[in-house]
C-alpha cells in the first residue's frame, strides 16, 4: 500500500535543493582550504573574481563551460534511456578527427562558414560511430556499456596517440599535433557578443561553438520531450518492460541513443580544436568527458539544468586556475578536490537535505492552507 507523501514545489525541487547542496559543498571546501592554512574567504573571492570579475575571466569560464555543456548533454541523453555512457571522453577525443581533417583538407580553399558545418557533421558522425560499437554490443550482446565505454576511452587514447604521432604530425615537427590551421579553419571568437555588455575578452578563446552548445541544449530538450523518438527513449529508460509492451524495439533505441550521445560528446571537439588551439593536440579533451557526468547529474539530465551546471564547472576550472596562481599553497589538485565535493554533494548526496526540507514545507503549507484534505482522492 502506498504511503501518502507531500510534493515539493518545482522551484524547491529544481532550484533551492541544488543551491543548498552547492552551498554545503563550498562550505566543506572552505574547511579544506582552511586546513592547508589559507583563508577560505580570500580563496572564494579569488574564485569568483577570477571567473566572473573581468572580461577575459568570463571568456575563459564560458569557453570551459562550452565543453561541459556538450559532454553533459551527451551523458544526459543516455541517462534518459537508462544508459550510463561514461565514454564521452573517448568519443570526443576520436571525434577530434571529424573536426581536424576537414580543417586540414579544406582550409586553403573554403571559408570558415563552410568548413564549420562540415566539421559539426564530421565530429558528430565520428563521435556517434565511436559510441555505436558499445551501443551495439549492449543491444545485441548484453555487454554493459559502462564497461565497454570505459574500455573504449583507453582505445581512443591509444588510437589518437598513434594518429597524431605517426599520421598527422607534420614532417620535421617534434610536437605530437597537427599543423596549425589557416584562418579558414578557425572559428570566430565571440568578442562582439561580450562587447555588448561592455566586456573585453582579451585573449580568452570564447568562440562560436558556445552558441552551438546552447542550440544543442535546446534541440536536446525538443528531442527528449517533444518527439516520438524522445518518448520512446524515456519509456525505455524508465521501464524497459513498458517499452517492450509498447512495441518499442529495445536494441534499436539503445543503439540510436548511444549514437546521439556520442554525437553530442563528439561535438565538444569543435571548441578546443577549431575554437582555441587551431590544431589538434594530444589529450585536447582534458577530462571534459568525465566532468560531463557531474554536469548531467547536477543538471538533473535536463538542458535547463545542464547549461548552468556547465557554467558552474567552467567557473571552477577558470577560477580554480586563478586561485592556484595566487595561492601557491593551493595546487590544481586542490581545485579537483573542490570539484569532487561539488559532485559529491550535488550528485551522490543529492537527497541528503530533502527530508528536512520536505518536512519544513509540509508544515508551511499546512499552516497556510489552514485546513486539510481527506486522504485518498
Amino acid at each position, binding site marked *: *500500500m502506498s504511503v*501518502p507523501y*507531500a510534493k515539493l514545489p518545482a522551484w524547491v525541487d529544481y532550484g533551492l535543493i541544488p543551491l543548498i547542496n552547492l552551498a554545503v559543498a563550498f562550505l566543506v571546501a572552505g574547511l579544506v582550504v582552511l586546513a592547508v592554512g589559507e583563508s577560505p574567504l580570500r580563496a572564494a573571492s579569488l574564485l569568483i573574481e577570477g571567473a566572473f570579475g573581468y572580461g577575459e575571466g568570463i571568456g575563459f569560464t564560458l569557453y570551459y563551460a562550452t565543453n561541459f555543456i556538450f559532454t553533459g548533454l551527451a551523458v544526459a541523453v543516455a541517462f534518459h534511456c537508462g544508459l550510463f555512457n561514461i565514454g564521452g571522453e573517448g568519443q570526443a577525443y576520436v571525434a577530434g578527427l571529424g573536426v581536424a581533417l576537414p580543417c586540414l583538407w579544406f582550409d586553403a580553399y573554403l571559408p570558415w562558414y563552410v568548413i564549420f558545418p562540415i566539421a559539426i557533421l564530421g565530429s558528430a558522425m565520428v563521435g556517434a560511430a565511436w559510441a555505436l560499437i558499445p551501443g551495439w554490443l549492449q543491444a545485441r550482446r548484453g555487454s554493459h556499456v559502462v564497461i565497454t565505454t570505459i574500455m573504449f576511452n583507453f582505445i581512443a587514447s591509444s588510437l589518437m596517440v598513434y594518429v597524431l604521432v605517426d599520421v598527422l604530425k607534420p614532417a620535421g615537427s617534434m610536437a605530437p599535433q597537427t599543423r596549425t590551421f589557416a584562418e579558414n579553419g578557425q572559428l570566430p571568437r565571440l568578442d562582439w557578443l561580450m562587447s555588448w555588455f561592455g566586456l573585453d575578452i582579451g585573449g580568452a578563446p570564447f568562440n562560436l561553438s558556445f552558441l552551438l552548445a546552447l542550440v544543442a541544449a535546446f534541440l536536446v530538450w525538443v528531442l527528449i520531450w517533444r518527439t*516520438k523518438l524522445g518518448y520512446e527513449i524515456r519509456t525505455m529508460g524508465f521501464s524497459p518492460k513498458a517499452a517492450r*509492451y*509498447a512495441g518499442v524495439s529495445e536494441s534499436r533505441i539503445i543503439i540510436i541513443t548511444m549514437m546521439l550521445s556520442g554525437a553530442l560528446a563528439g561535438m565538444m571537439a569543435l571548441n578546443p580544436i577549431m575554437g582555441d588551439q587551431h590544431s589538434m593536440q594530444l589529450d585536447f579533451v582534458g577530462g571534459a568527458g568525465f566532468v560531463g557526468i557531474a554536469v548531467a547529474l547536477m543538471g538533473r539530465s535536463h538542458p535547463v539544468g545542464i547549461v548552468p551546471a556547465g557554467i558552474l564547472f567552467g567557473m571552477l576550472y577558470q577560477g580554480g586556475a586563478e586561485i592556484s596562481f595566487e595561492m601557491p599553497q593551493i595546487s590544481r589538485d586542490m581545485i579537483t578536490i573542490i570539484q569532487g565535493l561539488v559532485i559529491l554533494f550535488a550528485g551522490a548526496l543529492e537527497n541528503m537535505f530533502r527530508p528536512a526540507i520536505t518536512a519544513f514545507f509540509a508544515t508551511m503549507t499546512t499552516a497556510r492552507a489552514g485546513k486539510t484534505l481527506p*486522504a*485518498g*482522492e
Partner: protein
Amino acid sequence: MTDIAIELRGIDKKFGLVHANKDIDLRVRKGSIHGIIGENGAGKSTLMSILYGFYQADDGEIFVDGRKADIKDPNAAIAAGIGMVHQHFMLVENFTVLENVMLGAEDSQILTSGISRARQELKRLEHEYELEVDPDAIIEELPVGLQQRVEILKALYRGAEILILDEPTGVLTPAEADHLFRILKQLKDQGKTILLITHKLREIMAITDEVSVMRRGEMVATRKTAETSVEELAELMVGRRVLLHVEKGPALPGEVLLSVENLTVRDSRGCDMVKDVSFEVRAGEIVGIAGVAGNGQSELLQAVSGIRRAVNGRVLLKGEPIHVTGKADPSELRHRGLAHVPEDRQHMGLVLSFDESENSILGYHDDPRYLNGAFLDIDAIRADAAEKIEKYDIRPPNPRLKTANFSGGNQQKIVLAREMERDPQVLIIGQPTRGVDVGAIEFIHKRIIEMRDAGKAVLLVSVELDEIRSLSDRVLVMFDGRIVGERAPDTGEGELGLLMAGVENSREAAE
C-alpha cells in the same frame, strides 16, 4: 490485567495536506482476531505503521496491555510485544530460514551460541503453533506461503504477543490462504492477538472476531463479525451501496477471433511455462483462465500479445497468423485489433514517472493523430487524454499529473481507457482488479461486460477465482503450463480449486 491488548486513542496523522488518519480510536480485544478493512488509501497502512513505529502520530495515545506505550521506532514496538508481517516480505532471499529468523537478534558477535539457541527456539515454536519449516532451507527456494510462515516465525521469535498482518493473502493460493487462516486460529487459541489488514471482505467474514472499517482516514465503524454482512461492510467501506454481484446477460458467441494452437512458451530460465496449449475465443464471449499464479498464465498472455517469443505453436488473430515463434511486434498486433491490459500494470502497462497523458498513448504513440511528423502533438495528446479521463471517471481529472500519484484503481482505468477506446476486436486482460478498490472494481467489471456485449472476444486471466467465475462465459483452468480442464462458470469453487491444484478427476474428488 485488562482484556484489551491494544487501545488507540485519538490517533491523528497528516502528511502535508493529506490527512491520513483522523482522530482514530480502536480497541482490540486480547486473544482475538481483529480485521481492519478499507479501500486503498483509506489509511489502514498508515495506522499500522504508526502502531509499529514507522511513523509518529501527530496526536493521540497508544496503550498496550493497558499501559501507555511510547512507540517511536520498530524496536520499541517489538519490545512492547508487537510483531508485523509485511505485505512485501522483509527477508534476505539467499539466507536460510534460521539466518533470517535470527537477523537482528543474534545476541552476540560470535554466532555459534546464538544459532543453537535459535534452532531450539524455532523447534519449540514450530511444535507449539504447527509452523513447520525446514530451518536450513534457503528462502528463495521456498514457496511464497512458506516464506510468509518465516515472517510469522520471525515475529514470534522476538516474543510478539500481538501480530499485525498487512494484506497477507495477496500472494497466496486459496489453499495456502486456508492454511494461513488455520495458523492464525491456532495462534489465537494460544492467546495471541492478531490484527489483520485486508481489503478482501470474504477473508474478514471467514476468520475475524471483530472488524473495523476505515474510510478516507476515519474509523467509520466497528462490528462484531458475526453480526454484520459482506453487503454492510462494502457499503461502509465505499460510503454508498455497491453492486458486488456482476450482472450480465447470456453470451452470444460469434465467429472465432482468437485461436491458440499447440502453444509452448519458455521463460527466461529456459523452463517450459506454457505446454502445448490450445483454445479459442469467439466474438462476444469472455473466456476466463483460472489458476494459481505462476502456472504459465503470465507467459501465455505475453506470448499471445507478442511480448514474449513462443517456442512452438500458432496463434491466429481473426484467422491470420501472428508470428508468435518469430518476431511478433506488439505494435503491429495493436494495429490488427488486439488490445492488451497487462498483468503488471505498474511496470508494463504504465510508466509511473510519465504524466497521465503520456501514458494514455503508450503503445499507440505512433498513431498519426498524436504526431506532427516526428514531433509529439502535445495538445492533441492532452485533449485525447482529457476525453478518456471524463469517460472513465479517472480521478483526479488532470492529464498532466504524474501517473504515480494516481491510486491503483485510477491507474488501471488509465490503462483500460487506452486499450478499450481503440475499439479492438480482441481484448486480453490480465489481473484487471489487482490492487484496485471496491468502487473501481465494479466499474471495471461493467466495462469488460460491455466489451463482450459489443461483440469483442475477451480473454481474461485472473488469480481471483471469484472474478473469473462472475465474469467468464467459459472457464479454462491452467495448471503447470497446461489447460487441465474447461468448466462452466457456475462450477463449484471446490471443484475448480482442485483442478487449480492439479488434481485430476476433480469432479469425483469434490464430491
